């Protein structure tokens, strides 16, 4: 297995999708400092990873109602791209709860 891209995002407004028939809604999780982890398959590049996370119907929109508090990634360029897009810092705060 080659090295896979991974990204972690600090999530302060976690929600999750609930679907009934053709109708989808989002339910907020109890307020907490959470970590959302995105694990990509082998061969996925930075551009695809960035789109997968940030697209309107992408991974982040399905996991949070607000921009992340911080981002980290196994790829420094991906982390910097995400930080620029979301206007947040790179790096998990030391007091952020572990997963």
């Amino acid at each position, binding site marked *: 297995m080659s090295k*896979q891209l991974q990204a972690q995002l600090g999530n302060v407004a976690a929600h999750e999708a609930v679907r009934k028939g053709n109708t989808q809604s989002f339910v907020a999780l109890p307020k907490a400092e*959470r970590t959302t982890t995105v*694990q990509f*398959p082998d061969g996925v590049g930075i551009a695809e990873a960035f789109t997968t996370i940030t697209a309107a119907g992408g*991974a982040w929109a399905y996991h949070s109602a607000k921009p992340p508090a911080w981002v980290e990634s196994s790829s420094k360029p991906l982390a910097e791209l995400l930080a620029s897009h979301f206007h947040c810092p790179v790096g998990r705060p030391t007091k952020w709860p572990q997963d």
Partner: protein
Amino acid sequence: MRVATGRTFQAKVMSDTASNGTGIYAPANYLALTETATAPADADTALTGELAAASGGLIRAQAAFTYTSGANTYTLTKTFTMNANDGASRTIQKLGVFNAATAGIMVFSSAVPNPPAMVPGDQLAVTETVSLV
């Protein structure tokens, strides 16, 4: 009771692309598409009419796995880009989640709300939510 770390464990075993499970224990994170509109049924073992054109952009593909600590769901996300090998037009009605690039076990199947009609060059971003409840 199943605790929060148990849900994390369950999600990762089921679909994390970093899992080293193999064979029938391989994680289910491959998304497949079909134009067949038949409602998903408990007895389904395959995705009837699965799109599988050689070098097509709508063929089965491995998705990104996303999980939020303490959540009751996780997601699988993949953007498909249709190309000429897929045909002139396709309307995506249903998807399947498999644990292999070919064949394998179909673990989930879902109807696609408001089935999108696609032509070559179109992109379809699919996010499948799996509930752990």
